[in-house]
């Protein structure tokens, strides 16, 4: 059978493209969005702070409870990348994210255990916008990771999308922009 390309797009492949395009749209939106409203910022800031705190505490069960089933997690190599065109450091769906968590507790996952990593995520000013279909939030973030060898310090920006869930919120996507990926970093097997 021929393995070369046909031109028609199926509904299934379109779904993949739509998810990827939405991730890129959120990222681009935050670059030039107008001033955010204080009230929404104040509502969203505890969500981002709690997410960072739970990850640092390795409280992954509580952390996963903050995520939507549709959760996407993207760490592009460069902020101009597109998940349909460029390999990323990470592009996870909800399933691979839970594998990542399970991996952190596998005693044979030599690069991420013994000694267990110590991390601090420091979140800067949180800005959030209600764009109708979802809430988009962004904040600068500094990460410190200590395990074996030299401490790893990274600075970046996170972009989250959220949906209202009763009185609270569920995170539907997270993009982590880390400029140092454009040069070189140690392995980032611990990043989530």
């Amino acid at each position, binding site marked *: *059978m*021929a*393995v*070369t*390309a*046909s031109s*028609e797009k*199926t509904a*299934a*492949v379109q*779904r*993949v493209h739509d998810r990827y395009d939405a991730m890129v749209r959120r990222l681009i939106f935050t670059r030039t969005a107008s001033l955010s409203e204080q009230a929404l910022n104040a509502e969203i800031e505890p969500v981002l702070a709690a997410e960072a705190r739970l990850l640092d505490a390795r409280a992954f069960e509580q952390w996963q409870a903050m995520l939507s089933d549709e959760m996407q997690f993207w760490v592009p*190599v*460069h902020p101009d*990348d597109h*998940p*349909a*065109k*460029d*390999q*990323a*450091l*990470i*592009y*996870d*769906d909800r*399933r*691979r994210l839970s*594998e*990542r968590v*399970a*991996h952190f507790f*596998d005693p*044979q*996952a*030599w*690069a*991420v255990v013994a000694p267990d990593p110590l991390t601090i995520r420091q979140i800067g000013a949180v800005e959030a916008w209600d764009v109708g279909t979802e809430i988009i939030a962004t904040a600068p973030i500094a990460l410190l990771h200590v395990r*074996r*060898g*030299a401490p790893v310090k990274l600075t970046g920006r996170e972009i989250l999308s959220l949906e209202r869930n009763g009185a609270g919120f569920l995170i539907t996507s997270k993009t982590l922009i880390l400029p140092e*990926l454009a*040069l*070189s*970093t*140690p*392995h*980032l*097997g611990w990043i989530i």
Partner: protein
Amino acid sequence: MTTPLSKAPDDPTRPDAVIARGPDMTDRMNHLVRDELLHRSVYTDQELFDLEMQRVFGGTWVFLAHESEIPEAGDYVRRQMGKRQILIVRTEHGEIKGLINRCTHRGTTLVPSEAGCAKRFVCPYHGWAFDLDGRIANLPVPDSYDKLYERPFDLGQVAIGERAGFIFGTLAADPIPVDDWLGAAGPWLDLHVARYPKGKMKVQRRKVVQEFAGNWKMSWDNAADGIHATFAHASYNTLGKSADTDTVLARNPAATPMVSKTLGHGHCVVDQRPGIPDGPWSTMRPLPTRDDLEESLREKGHEAQEMFDLMTGDMINLSIFPNLIFVGNQIMVPEPVAPDRTKVNFYLSMAPEAEEEVDLMRLRVDEDFLSFGTPDDFEMFERVQEGLRVDEEEWIDISRGAGAGDVVDEDGLVTGTVASEAPMRAYLAEWKRLMSKPIPTKVRRARLEDSRFMQIIKKRQMKKEKTS
């Protein structure tokens, strides 16, 4: 006044001088690299590292780029050959040149970015301009030089060789042809590309670069090491098992029919196919977008295994010494930084002539091992480097397989099980050969008489001399 090219042929200041640098190391190499033993300093010594940057990364062919990265005239990528930055450029005539990214005036690097498209390369310091083929095209105040046309200001170049779209370069004055150097590895390289529809492989623009605190040769010790897959990558195999999948690494190394082969000049291959009867795609567990992309392919009428297998690697780990390692769909290029520091460039190869689902899947497939496999390799490399600091434990045993399973053919090439350390011994033999003697090298340059700019200057200056 003596001009550069009127100097005696053996004058080392000539721009085209052939020079063999550094001391004869034969005795020291014989001490450090033995049939079954290897000395720790091969991984730790600064002097050996500095010599490697000349003799291994310069004195023999090294991988620089793939032709799909520079499809159009003016396209270039910047690559590292030891300490030298090399621009791999497509000229107006479609030729490929390897230009040293160094202005011939004061030494400024011409290009600050990793890739781009240029009409010519202009030095930002004093405005010297060079054509895509390296010839000097212009410089300011040319009359301030006496006999400018006899000065070798064209950019330095490396020799370029190609096979199956892969571009190699060397500074060796008299290198053997690339096909001879590849030898038995050449057909494996051809085979790697042949699986791509219409024979077209494309290297993605974006690479992942990660570094480890260890010597670059750790990558080589690991490349054909079939035992580490079971232990170092136990956690990757656990992820597979949790989804009822046997990863390619989850095979019993004592029983698998996978084989490793040495291919000459330090090259080697591990053929995993005999151990994967259900084909490459059977080794992959559920991945992001996999369900949608498989559904899409089936909807288009694709049921053949071949299409699905194309989404992951070919299960042939080919390693071309000193810096080209194929694993999965990734092209790993180790880049030495210091005796105890190495960057690894992970390039992703794509199948542009296949259904788009294939490349969409390839993107997510290769993030998987980078997340759950590569970190464990790096962890091991760093811990080996830590262990090698013990001065009193001088030797590493590298004898596995020798006299215990290895089969040597009439050309001296070895076939063994995946437990054999024959590939390690083979690359170390090539390393030893390269490191033992000074290797004559030279910087190539465009021929002066071909430079239009220089012709104009020459005419003008001769006219001036006549009239005065």
